[in-house]
């Protein structure tokens, strides 16, 4: 049973398996023979081993003929260990790459060909590129509603190639023109092999124009090209905290997050160059995920820098784990963007409910996090002044052996932008800030 569970958990579309062991089985007087089979075979579970050769060939031809190609890669590329293949393919095709929230790090975040995360809080240039693309290669992604905005307005000009290990993910919300069911690493390898001997040439002129257009969008809208948030005030801006975190950790930390504004800021302002550096609950939307996830990472990578980007709401979902951090010596760093509110809920209340803040404000009910940390035997640092941010963060990460909690008071009025205009918007319809839209 255990072997079967691990087999199912680790193959196909990987994921957790629950084994329910009743109490009577654990009775020490009952002895069972130990047996752990070498291999398991399940007649009802046979994940695809290869992609369909004909479909793969068709996909490659489509990509070669594309004038405005686009690669849209999700968390499946990371789970399927196909990041190198993805990078090779993108370089070979000179195609722009966007990653989903779960796919961040699948393609190097600071690379020229990376146009940023896409979707609801994605980069404008990524969403524009998707909207105007004529061929989209979707790999290990599932066209989530946080990505597509209104499905029937999604990428009107594009032929869509969809590679996924799970047949149920294909043509679920957006119909694929070339569906390929198979493990992403093997499918991408097959594509690279065909490309190596392909005689057909890409339209170099069209690609050049495409890149020119994308770079124009990037110049005009890119949030990492220059700050699009307020930089002249006294308040600490949450975006600035993440950028500072990126610089202080030299972009090489393992970053986990919870759910909310801080999660989106972290995804936007901390480019990941390597896979499995960004640990997130994604579509499950689990507040309280960040701290335990950070502990898990730290437990495996003892010397690594692990930062849990969180908010004062999310961290209190699993705050008891600070005790476990003590018990197992897991010196994670907690970066708390404290805006004294459930920021994302508040943002939606601002935008859609005339700022009627129902149950989203803390109103003086927050604990003193510094004292709380001290009670657990850890270190707490409160930051309220903008000019102190960098020095205090450096101080935090210099304490290698300590659990450190940075309680950073950020501008409570800040919203996450860019943001899809919904309902009934397409990929290119976005708010750039509180008043301007595309």
């Amino acid at each position, binding site marked *: 049973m255990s072997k079967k569970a691990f087999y*199912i958990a680790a193959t196909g579309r990987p994921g957790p398996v629950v084994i329910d062991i009743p109490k009577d089985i654990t009775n020490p007087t009952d002895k069972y023979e130990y047996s752990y089979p070498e291999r398991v075979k*399940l*007649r*009802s*579970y046979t994940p695809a081993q290869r992609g369909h050769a004909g479909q793969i060939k068709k996909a490659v031809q489509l990509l070669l003929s594309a004038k405005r190609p686009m690669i849209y890669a999700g968390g499946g590329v990371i789970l399927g260990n196909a990041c190198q293949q993805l990078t090779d393919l993108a370089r070979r095709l000179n195609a722009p790459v966007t990653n989903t929230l779960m796919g961040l790090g699948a393609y190097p975040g600071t690379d020229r060909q990376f146009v940023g995360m896409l979707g609801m809080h994605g980069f404008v240039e990524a969403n524009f590129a998707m909207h105007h693309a004529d061929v989209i290669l979707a790999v290990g992604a599932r066209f989530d509603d946080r990505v597509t905005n209104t499905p029937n307005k999604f990428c009107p000009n594009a032929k869509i190639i969809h590679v996924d290990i*799970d*047949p*149920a993910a294909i*043509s*679920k919300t957006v119909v694929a023109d070339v569906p390929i069911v198979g493990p992403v690493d093997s499918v991408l390898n097959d594509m690279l092999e065909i490309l190596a001997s392909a005689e057909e040439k890409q339209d170099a002129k069209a690609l050049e124009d495409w890149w020119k257009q994308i770079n124009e969008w990037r110049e005009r809208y890119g949030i990492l090209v220059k700050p699009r948030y307020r930089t002249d005030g006294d308040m600490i801006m949450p975006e600035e905290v993440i950028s500072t975190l990126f610089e202080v950790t030299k972009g090489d930390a393992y970053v986990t997050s919870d759910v909310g504004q801080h999660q989106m800021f972290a995804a936007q302002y901390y480019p990941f160059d390597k896979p499995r550096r960004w640990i997130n609950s994604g579509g499950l939307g689990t507040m309280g995920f960040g701290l335990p996830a950070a502990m898990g990472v730290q437990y495996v990578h003892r010397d690594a820098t692990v930062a849990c980007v969180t908010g004062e709401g999310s961290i209190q979902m699993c705050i008891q784990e600070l005790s476990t951090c003590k018990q197992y010596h897991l010196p994670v760093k907690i970066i708390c963007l404290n805006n004294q509110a459930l920021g994302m809920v508040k943002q939606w209340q601002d935008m859609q409910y005339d700022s009627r803040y129902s149950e989203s404000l803390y109103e003086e009910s927050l604990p003193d996090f510094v004292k709380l940390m001290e009670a657990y035997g850890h270190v707490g640092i409160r930051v309220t002044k903008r000019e102190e941010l960098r020095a205090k963060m450096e101080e935090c990460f210099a304490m290698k052996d300590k659990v450190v909690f940075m309680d950073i008071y950020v501008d409570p009025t800040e919203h996450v932008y860019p943001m899809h205009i919904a309902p009934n918007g397409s990929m290119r319809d976005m708010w750039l800030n509180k008043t301007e839209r595309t």
Partner: protein
Amino acid sequence: MRRIISVLMENEPGALSRVVGLFSQRGYNIESLTVAPTEDRTLSRLTLTTIGDDHKIEQITKHLNRLIDVVKLVDLTEGAHIERELMLIKVRATGAQRAEVKRCVDIFRGQIIDVTATVYTIQITGTSDKLDAFFQAVGEASILEVVRSGVSGIGRGEKVLTI
């Protein structure tokens, strides 16, 4: 459109609940459902009818296939197939009605399998439409109790669903 989906699955505890759970979680409605073991005791054959357009049915079959306990499945309505449903029905049969009901049962090729002074218990098999038609023929007013087995189906000709 009405579809008949036929599923071969592991004859294990919890398997049925996963299939049914999938329907309720995703908001699909099951019209009828029948399950029983096959000649291979480790396998159960489940037949269910549901209503949906092509896209919805494709989603249902893909998600059913995704369940670990599901070995194989087929949408019978995609090709030529045979479907049958068994119905047991109690009908009030007194006076002149007795002969009338008897004639009706003969026309529908059913059998009267139990009799009292006032009640016939009748068994009829056929497609769901035929069973519905029988209600009309005897008149709903005289029906006392109805038990239907739900649809069982099998492909026509040489096509077989087996592992």
